[in-house]
């Protein structure tokens, strides 16, 4: 039963749910304390050993005490609400040593129910005892119940029932709820029994307390009114000490008791009401005069009763708060608490114990602490703190209270400004009116735009209260220290002085002296710390830790303080709270100084120098000076001994100088110098560093320790002369920052320090960047990385190293956890910059310019490759021509220190990887040409494994690899043949060889690449003019095929012997063209041309050219736009055959005209004697071509005549032409065939004379099979007069001609236009017939005008034989009259 007696301070269980009773076990002899009435009756009042009434002189309360904890204890532990007697039923077997043990008087129990007299005796006395107890209980109104425990032997006893009944009846106990029998049973049964017992007694218990409340209520109402009972005359004769308890005091007593009983009843609502009432009454006793009892003086300060009342008020307040928390009204609880504080603050001032006295702060601290404890216990027991949600709850306020409390004479309890708060002393003056709005947190509150929170009434967890308490403790200590200063003597009572009219009492002073304030503060802060830690408010704990540290500092425990500071500094540093960090650093410096930890002092001072630490300039200067004086002054207290080397990892603290090292290039080469720059830049702007700071050395450590660089400045502090012979440049940039550049690439290896060393001035000047440029020459292949930069300050006593590990190394070095310590800025390294020195070549001394250039990202480490010492040169004459075997000489020089055998790969990179390239690269062009003609040539874009041998030596085909001697050149010529596309080609050659390094056994393969581009251009350009020739032209030419040329238009059927096709003579249309082809040597190189031949397209299939043996008969053509022409050719072949067009070469143009105007025969000459075509030379070739169309209607517009095949080679001036002749096919522009529509030719005399009429003959041809209707108009011309028909309509039959003769009369000399003859074909009829609706829509008149063109006209303005465009008029050169010339 007791196990369920889990009494804790926090017990918010209600009703039957929890442990039902507080069970107090007592001995069997225990009797209830006698009631007062009983004592009075028995006249034994003096026996009332513990009367707690103030009326009783023996009571501790006599004469005017209010209530005592004894009373509570009595009701808690002595006077029960239910009295349960647990008794044993007498058993024979319990009589030990009795011989008759186990023997009844009667061997058997008869049916008559004869009772064993011994048993009866015992039972009677038991019943008597129970009866007594019952009576006593009843007097007090306490429910009495009895539990009779049976022994195992009883179970078999048939008489047991009777015995129990007897006992029960004799004791006058009700069978229900008053008398229980507990048979022997196991633990589980017993505990079940206990629970049931409590359940059944619960109501009785409640009734008891209900009665008690009722009784006291009645007593309270019997009291006289406070206003009436101003205790007249009592005070004078009572003489102060004999003052009895006032009515108000009695009221308080009853209220308190009712509260207590209600609490016992677990009626929290009422309990809180009573307690609050009591609290109000109690509070009213503190002011000078009471309001509830008008005129009554308040409690005298610093008396015993006053002190008691204060404690009582505190307790009551706490109780009230607790109950509000029970009721889940945290705001109300907090409200009560704060109200209590406010009220007592006002009182304290009136007692001259205001907030300048340590007593007040002690009290306040205690209040906060106790409240914090309450919350702590509560939350641990499951109380949920409220979460203030915006916009939901209206809380009450203390409006007016503080104002009211200031005027103490008027202060009447708490009720002065009760309107808004809704509490205060009611008009009857007897109780608080519980304000509705104060309890808003309970009821939910008002929603809406007016919603708001009084932040003072938001209950927070205990940590805040502990913290407050700690603050109070701090204040308390300060006040106490002040007091102690004033009254240092612990034996002499403080005497009031003018400045301190109300000193604390000696007693309180001495009591205070015994208290270790700092320990208390730390304890409170630690408690708070734990609370916040539990609430996962990590940053708050840091704050508290800083306070704890501060307290330790005050307490003189510097070591502890320093430890705390160091721990918390990290977070602030990481998150950039520099003001806080500064404060922490300042504290730390103080601590470290006290402790003599000068290394720490230096460390903190260095961090304090960072411009990120907010400080005034004077402060900065003092920090700087302090640091310098510690470092450089011998007589400084810090420098009594030589300090250990101090290493500071700079990325973990705020730094005053940034430090970056980088290489200029991403790659470096073995044994060649590679530049790097170290940039030391002061952080922050102007004034961040007050003076120059001198470093003793700068050490740059690389991943290869043999490359470490060390720059030293051995000057003592007072010398400022320029140090070192290194070149220095400086300038100011836009922001006024000084940029200094020092060239330190001439370092000497210092075996002592095992680094490359040079002496240089290392002053870090304010607002400047110091750039030290160095160069390193690695000796083996590796990846070089800067691992660490160390800035060192060395003095006699100090050796300080500021280390800047590069980030990669730092991350590799220590694990993820410590990465967090890095400063945020250093996580994002700034853009890499390279300070470039650009000098004016003429004036190198003065105007060197410094400029930061951005380097591309990521080259923090420089991969170091072994530099190949092989030199590759290429020789070629760019641009190259397409189709030729373009020779490229590749020269490779062995620059290594020993002979090596080299292999070379050559790769011709494709122009477009998605297209199969026909370009090729070969070693032997003659062989390639042979295989090309044999059709077995495979275009290869790569050449692999060319063994390089000494220049001049013939190419050895043997697989024996010959070493190339040191410094020798190997030469190899490759030939590149590019086709079709005139763009640059990229050729890559790689030279591979193996070398064995000095120190290593294994051979390392080295490769060097060389890529170069060659521009390819077409060698020739050709332009063709087609000039239609009239039949008579072909007659004059009279070639071997003249009979076909003379074929009349209407020829009888003939069988073409070549094609075997029958040409329908009626439709055959023959035209003869003079092809005038101009071939231009486009490139800059002279070429030798062996042969130029026109290949008529239709013949190309039948021609068996040696060079055209490629696939599809065109693979080897190599002409411009090969695929294009192939497509065209196929197209044409098909169409030509289908439409019956035949192209014949009438006159071979093997006659060429060179630039000098000399005719010479191209073919037939010996190769060597071929004259070169120089660049820009133009050759014209004339060919006469006849086009025979079976049906012009079906003929295409353009006819591919064919291409010009040129056999040529590059001409070398020295005559050593080794390249073979290659073939280039030059495609020619297609011939535009006249459309099958009427056209006009004009026949003019050669010239005309002014004022001499001449006749122009226009011939209109209708080559179509339809009758054409033409409208003719003649437009007049300026220079000529024409007389005749100006408008006419002509009708021309199919395949018929129509002649128009015009007699013209020239008026002016020169090229003169003839009157323009405009012929328009009226196409109305065919349109309609074909039903071209769209045409009809566009031309509602239904006829389309087609201009009849004139063919073969001389253009106006140009003597060149270009064809005429549409709408041109014919011109004639009119000579002046002969007469006028003379």
């Amino acid at each position: 039963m007791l196990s369920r007696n889990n009494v804790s301070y926090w017990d918010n269980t209600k009703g039957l749910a929890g442990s039902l009773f507080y069970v107090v076990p007592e001995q069997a002899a225990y009797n209830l304390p006698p009631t007062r009435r009983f004592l009075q009756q028995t006249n034994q009042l003096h026996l009332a050993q513990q009367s707690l009434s103030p009326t009783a002189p023996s009571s501790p309360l006599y004469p005017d005490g209010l209530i005592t904890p004894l009373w509570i204890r009595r009701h808690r532990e002595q006077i029960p609400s239910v009295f349960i007697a647990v008794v044993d039923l007498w058993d024979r077997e319990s009589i030990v040593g009795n011989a008759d043990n186990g023997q009844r008087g009667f061997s058997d129990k008869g049916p008559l129910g004869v009772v064993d007299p011994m048993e009866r005796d015992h039972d009677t006395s038991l019943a008597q005892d129970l009866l007594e107890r019952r009576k006593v209980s009843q007097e007090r109104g306490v429910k009495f119940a009895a539990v009779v425990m049976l022994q195992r032997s009883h179970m078999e006893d048939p008489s047991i029932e009777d015995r129990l009944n007897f006992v029960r009846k004799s004791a006058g106990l009700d069978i229900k709820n008053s008398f229980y029998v507990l048979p022997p049973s196991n633990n589980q049964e017993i505990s079940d029994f206990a629970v049931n017992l409590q359940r059944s007694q619960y109501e009785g218990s409640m009734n008891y307390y209900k009665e008690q409340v009722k009784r006291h209520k009645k007593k309270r109402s019997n009291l006289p009114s406070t206003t009436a009972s101003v205790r007249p005359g009592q005070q004078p004769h009572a003489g102060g000490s004999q003052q009895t308890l006032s009515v108000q005091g009695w009221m308080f007593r009853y209220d308190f008791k009712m509260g207590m009983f209600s609490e016992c009843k677990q009626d929290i609502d009422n309990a809180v009401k009573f307690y609050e009432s009591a609290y109000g009454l109690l509070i009213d006793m503190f002011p000078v005069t009471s309001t509830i009892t008008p005129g009554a003086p308040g409690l005298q300060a610093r008396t015993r009763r006053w002190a008691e009342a204060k404690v009582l008020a505190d307790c009551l307040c706490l109780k009230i708060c607790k109950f509000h928390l029970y009721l889940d009204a945290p705001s109300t609880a907090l409200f009560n608490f704060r109200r209590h504080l406010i009220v007592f603050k006002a009182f304290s001032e009136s007692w001259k114990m205001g907030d300048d006295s340590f007593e007040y702060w002690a009290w306040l601290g205690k209040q906060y602490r106790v409240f914090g404890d309450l919350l702590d216990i509560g939350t641990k027991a499951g109380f949920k703190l409220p979460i203030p949600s915006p916009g939901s709850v209206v809380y009450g306020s203390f409006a007016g209270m503080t104002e009211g409390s200031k005027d103490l004479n008027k202060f009447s309890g708490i009720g002065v400004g009760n309107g808004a708060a809704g509490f205060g002393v009611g008009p009857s003056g007897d109780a608080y009116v519980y304000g509705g709005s104060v309890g808003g947190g309970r009821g939910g509150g008002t929603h809406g735009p007016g919603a708001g929170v009084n932040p003072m009434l938001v209950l927070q967890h205990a940590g805040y209260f502990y913290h407050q308490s700690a603050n109070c403790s701090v204040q308390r200590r300060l006040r106490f220290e002040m007091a102690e200063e004033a009254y240092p003597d612990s034996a002499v009572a403080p005497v009031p002085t003018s400045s301190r009219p109300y000193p604390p009492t000696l007693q309180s002073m001495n009591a205070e002296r015994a208290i270790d304030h700092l320990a208390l503060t730390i304890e409170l802060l630690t408690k708070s710390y734990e609370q916040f830690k539990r609430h996962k408010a990590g940053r708050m704990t840091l704050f508290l830790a800083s306070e704890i540290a501060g307290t330790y500092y005050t307490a003189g425990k510097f070591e502890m303080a320093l430890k705390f500071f160091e721990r918390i500094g990290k977070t602030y540093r990481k998150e950039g709270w520099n003001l806080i960090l500064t404060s922490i650093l300042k504290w730390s410096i103080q601590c470290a100084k006290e402790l003599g930890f000068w290394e720490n002092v230096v460390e903190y001072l260095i961090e304090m120098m960072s411009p990120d630490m907010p400080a005034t300039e004077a402060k900065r200067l003092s920090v700087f000076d302090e640091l310098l004086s510690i470092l450089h002054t011998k007589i400084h207290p810090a420098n009594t001994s030589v300090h250990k080397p101090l290493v500071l990892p700079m990325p973990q603290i705020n730094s005053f100088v940034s430090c970056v090292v980088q290489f200029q290039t991403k790659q470096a080469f073995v044994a060649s110098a590679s530049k790097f720059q170290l940039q030391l830049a002061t952080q922050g702007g102007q004034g961040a560093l007050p003076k120059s700071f001198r470093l003793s050395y700068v050490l740059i450590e690389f991943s290869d320790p043999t490359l470490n660089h060390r720059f030293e400045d051995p000057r003592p502090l007072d010398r400022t002369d320029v140090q070192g012979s290194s070149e220095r440049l400086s300038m100011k940039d836009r922001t006024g920052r000084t940029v200094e550049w020092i060239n330190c690439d001439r370092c000497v290896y210092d075996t002592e320090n095992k680094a490359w060393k040079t002496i240089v001035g290392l002053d870090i000047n304010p607002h400047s960047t110091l750039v030290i440029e160095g160069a390193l020459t690695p000796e083996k292949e590796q990846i070089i990385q800067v691992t660490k930069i160390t800035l060192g300050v060395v003095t006699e006593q100090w050796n300080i190293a500021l280390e800047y590990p590069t980030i990669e190394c730092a991350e590799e070095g220590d694990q993820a956890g410590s990465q967090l310590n890095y400063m945020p800025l250093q996580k994002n390294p700034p853009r890499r910059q390279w300070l470039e020195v650009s000098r004016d070549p003429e004036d190198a001394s003065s105007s060197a310019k410094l400029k930061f250039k951005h380097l591309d990202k990521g080259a923090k480490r420089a991969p170091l490759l072994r530099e190949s010492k092989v030199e590759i040169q290429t020789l070629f004459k760019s641009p190259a021509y397409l189709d030729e075997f373009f020779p490229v000489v590749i020269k490779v020089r062995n620059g290594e220190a020993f002979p090596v055998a080299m292999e070379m790969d050559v790769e011709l990179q494709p122009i477009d990887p998605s297209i199969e390239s026909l370009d090729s690269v070969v070693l032997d062009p003659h062989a390639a040409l042979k295989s090309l003609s044999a059709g077995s040539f495979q275009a290869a874009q790569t050449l692999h494994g060319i063994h390089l041998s000494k220049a001049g030596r013939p190419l050895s085909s043997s697989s024996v690899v010959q070493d190339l001697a040191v410094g020798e050149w190997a030469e190899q010529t490759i030939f590149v043949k590019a086709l079709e596309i005139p763009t640059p080609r990229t050729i890559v050659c790689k030279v591979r060889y193996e070398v064995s390094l000095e120190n290593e056994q294994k051979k390392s393969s080295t490769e060097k690449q060389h890529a170069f581009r060659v521009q390819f251009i077409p060698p020739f350009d050709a332009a063709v003019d087609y000039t239609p020739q009239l039949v008579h032209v072909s007659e004059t030419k009279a070639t071997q095929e003249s009979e076909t040329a003379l074929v009349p238009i209407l020829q009888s059927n003939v069988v073409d012997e070549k094609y075997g096709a029958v040409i329908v003579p009626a439709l055959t249309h023959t035209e003869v063209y003079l092809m005038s082809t101009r071939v231009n040597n486009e490139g800059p190189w002279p070429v030798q041309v062996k042969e130029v031949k026109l290949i008529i397209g239709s013949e190309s299939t039948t021609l068996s050219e040696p060079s055209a043996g490629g696939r599809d008969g065109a693979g080897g053509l190599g002409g411009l736009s090969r695929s294009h022409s192939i497509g065209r050719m196929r197209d044409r072949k098909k169409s030509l055959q289908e439409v019956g067009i035949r192209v014949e070469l009438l006159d071979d143009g093997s006659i060429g005209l060179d630039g000098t105007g000399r005719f010479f025969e191209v073919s037939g000459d010996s190769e060597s004697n071929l004259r070169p075509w120089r660049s820009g030379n133009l050759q014209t070739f004339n060919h006469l071509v006849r086009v025979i169309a079976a049906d012009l209607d079906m003929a295409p517009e353009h006819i591919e005549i064919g291409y010009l095949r040129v056999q040529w080679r590059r001409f070398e001036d020295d005559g050593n032409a080794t390249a073979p002749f290659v073939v280039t096919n030059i495609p020619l522009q297609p011939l535009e065939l006249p459309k099958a529509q009427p056209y006009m030719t004009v026949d003019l005399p050669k010239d005309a004379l002014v004022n001499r009429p001449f006749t122009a003959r226009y011939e209109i041809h209708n080559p179509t099979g339809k009758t054409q209707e033409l409208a003719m108009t003649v437009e007049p011309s300026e220079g000529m007069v024409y007389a005749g028909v100006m408008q006419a309509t002509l009708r021309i039959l199919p395949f018929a001609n129509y002649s128009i003769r015009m007699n013209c009369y020239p008026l002016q000399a020169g090229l003169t236009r003839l009157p323009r003859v405009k012929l328009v074909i009226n196409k109305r009829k065919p349109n309609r017939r074909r039903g071209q609706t769209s045409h009809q829509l566009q031309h509602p008149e239904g006829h389309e005008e087609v201009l009849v063109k004139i063919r073969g006209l001389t253009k106006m303005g140009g003597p060149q034989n270009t064809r005429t465009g549409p709408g041109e008029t014919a011109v004639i050169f009119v000579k002046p009259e002969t007469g006028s010339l003379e």
Partner: protein
Amino acid sequence: MANINISCIAIIGKQNNPLYIKNFNPSHADLKYHYIAHTSCDVMEERAAMKAQDMYLGVLFSMEDLSVYGYMTNTKIKFIAVLTVHDVIIKDLDMKNIFRRIHAAYVNHASNPFYEIDSEKMIKSKKFEQEIDAIGRGRALEGGNRNSLPATAP
């Protein structure tokens, strides 16, 4: 608004780094507000995790006579207003308006193309300071805050 007595306005970056802290109340040292601003970070994060929809987080905690109000933008920029409160009801609407103004000022500032949003450096801008100052002293900015959001009822 009349009863709101702003002691400090703080703006904290998403890495919990201070961006701007302005003290309007000489009775406490700047350091105190730095501490308060720093400690609020935890509370704000906890609060914001509970309810994500509103940027206004209400009163975060009270310490002595200071009450700390919080507001967190969607980009996790935290605004903190520390009020010196004796005993008044602070209307959420008023607080929201204050925070909206701060937000607008911040957005104005962050819209500057030369401001590096992730730089973690303290904000240094005359215009911004003026705006915050006006908010902190409870008056409208001269010429009005052109970007201040219209006050709407929640």
